[in-house]
């Protein structure tokens, strides 16, 4: 399919990774003692199926080259061949650790195309679900970071909380992971009775448990500090250049949060802070995540307080045939900016759907930041961006 001209152009651009590996004499420019090594795709600590081609000098990483595509499922092509509502369950499979946010981005984009007006209760339920999902994603993220540092216990404490949050999500949506709860024009069903009180009660307990079992267990530990402080340090300019969003970006000091700066749903009616930190290293993004957990709890409490009555679905008609044009949806997923671009041609399935996944963009920092670190530092840096395989591979 490639014309000969463009093929030549590609080859001229410094060749492919496999070509570089096939010619070991190229390695000599890095010194003779370096060693090429694969890390992944079947690596126990890798977040999903990622292959890093590493060039090691002793244990110092000289070059880190991520190779993706082991979990590519053509989500964008699938979305072009489904009717609009049938794409929502597919978006659940993108970032399978924060499914609600994927659904949210997609339905926002289609609602942008349809110029839909949503009932307020639906918006509040969406925010409630998003923030519960953020809790369920951030707390294990902290656990994953510790898992990568070699401590096995915090992840299980974290998953205890995630499972309990999933119980609520299951009670609301009917599924534990692939929720398919947001619909174009609202949400699938109203909240089951009494769930808000249960969530509120749970949050009271969560605050104490999170403080002891995650924050206290981890934060003060000298080994933890030694492993994370100064590791993966980025300047704000560097982070913006690389395209990092979410907690790692806020960890460098850039207070950019879609919820505040590009408000969607009813976030502009809610009171919360954007947590930032100055250090820009792994420890900073960990602190940002901790802070965001507290902010999420705060948001959920406000939502429970303010939850209006009313319908949960807008009346958009059975068949969705948006006008021709572009629809954009942008949400703050736990990993950063998740954006969806839907192009409609007027039919009842999208002409083109593009997902901007935060894992995909943030992972570029592996190429930029990892060289110069020790081999064991790769894992905390991965924990800092906390990528999800389904997200970066679409």
């Amino acid at each position: 399919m490639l014309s000969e001209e463009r093929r030549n152009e590609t080859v001229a651009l410094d060749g492919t990774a496999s070509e570089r590996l096939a010619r070991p004499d190229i390695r000599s420019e890095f010194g003779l003692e370096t060693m090429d090594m694969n890390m992944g795709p079947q690596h126990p600590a890798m977040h999903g199926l990622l292959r890093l081609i590493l060039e090691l000098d002793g244990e110092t990483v000289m070059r880190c080259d991520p190779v993706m595509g082991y979990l590519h499922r053509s989500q964008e092509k699938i979305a072009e061949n489904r009717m609009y509502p049938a794409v929502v369950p597919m978006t659940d499979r993108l970032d399978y650790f924060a499914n609600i946010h994927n659904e949210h981005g997609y339905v926002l984009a289609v609602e942008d195309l349809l110029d839909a007006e949503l009932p307020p209760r639906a918006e509040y339920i969406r925010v409630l679900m998003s923030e519960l999902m953020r809790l369920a994603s951030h707390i294990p993220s902290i656990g994953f970071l510790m898992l990568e540092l070699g401590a096995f216990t915090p992840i299980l404490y974290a998953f205890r909380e995630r499972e309990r949050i999933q119980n609520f999500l299951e009670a609301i949506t009917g599924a534990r992971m692939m929720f398919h709860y947001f619909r174009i024009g609202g949400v699938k069903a109203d909240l089951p009775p009494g769930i808000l009180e249960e969530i509120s009660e749970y949050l009271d307990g969560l605050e104490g448990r999170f403080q002891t079992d995650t924050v206290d267990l981890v934060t003060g530990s000298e080994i933890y500090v030694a492993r994370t402080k100064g590791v993966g340090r980025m300047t704000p300019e560097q982070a913006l250049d690389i395209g990092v969003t979410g907690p790692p970006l806020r960890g460098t000091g850039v207070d950019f949060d879609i919820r505040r700066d590009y408000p969607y749903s009813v976030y502009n009616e809610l009171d919360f802070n954007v947590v930032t930190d100055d250090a820009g290293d792994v420890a900073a993004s960990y602190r940002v995540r901790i802070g965001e957990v507290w902010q999420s709890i705060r948001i959920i409490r406000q939502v429970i307080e303010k939850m209006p009555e009313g319908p949960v679905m807008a009346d958009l008609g059975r068949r969705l045939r948006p006008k021709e044009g572009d629809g954009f949806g942008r949400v703050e997923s736990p990993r950063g900016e998740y954006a969806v671009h839907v192009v409609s041609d007027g039919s009842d399935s999208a002409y083109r759907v593009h997902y901007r996944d935060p894992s995909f963009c943030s992972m570029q920092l592996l190429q930029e930041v990892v060289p110069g670190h020790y081999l064991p530092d790769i894992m905390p840096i991965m924990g800092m961006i906390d990528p999800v395989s389904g997200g970066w591979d679409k």
Partner: protein
Amino acid sequence: MAVSMPGGDVASRLSGYLDGLKNRHGLEEGEVEGNVVRVVVAPESVPQVLATAKAQLKVLHLSFITVVDWEGSFELTYELLDLRGGTVRVKTVIEGTEPVIGSVTSVYPTANWHEREAYDMFGVAFRGHPDLRRTYMWQDHFDHHPLLKSFDISTKRTFEGLR
């Protein structure tokens, strides 16, 4: 904080972006729509327009690059955020079936993987890209660009051979 955030009113900032881009480049089309500045530029001037946006107008963040295959032409959308509510959306249309366009990696380094993805999925060649490889598909054994409309899918069950 080392990075200076844009201040002031969103609306005035957006008109500033539009004026800035219009004054420096002869734009075919441009409008402010909500919180979005939409501009349509010629494919040759995309790197220059984005360089202006980054350097002069301080729009710091490239969110994504979307390619749409309109069967005969390719539409590229560059979504830029100024991180404070303003969006600059640069669109360009490349005619023909084998698109070539200048890379913006020197302006926004994050475009690196976005352009690689576009190359992988649509075969858009980015001139001046430092490392134009496939992101998802096999490096050596796959000679198609799956998101092109000419790439047929069938709903045939893929695991028939496994049964």
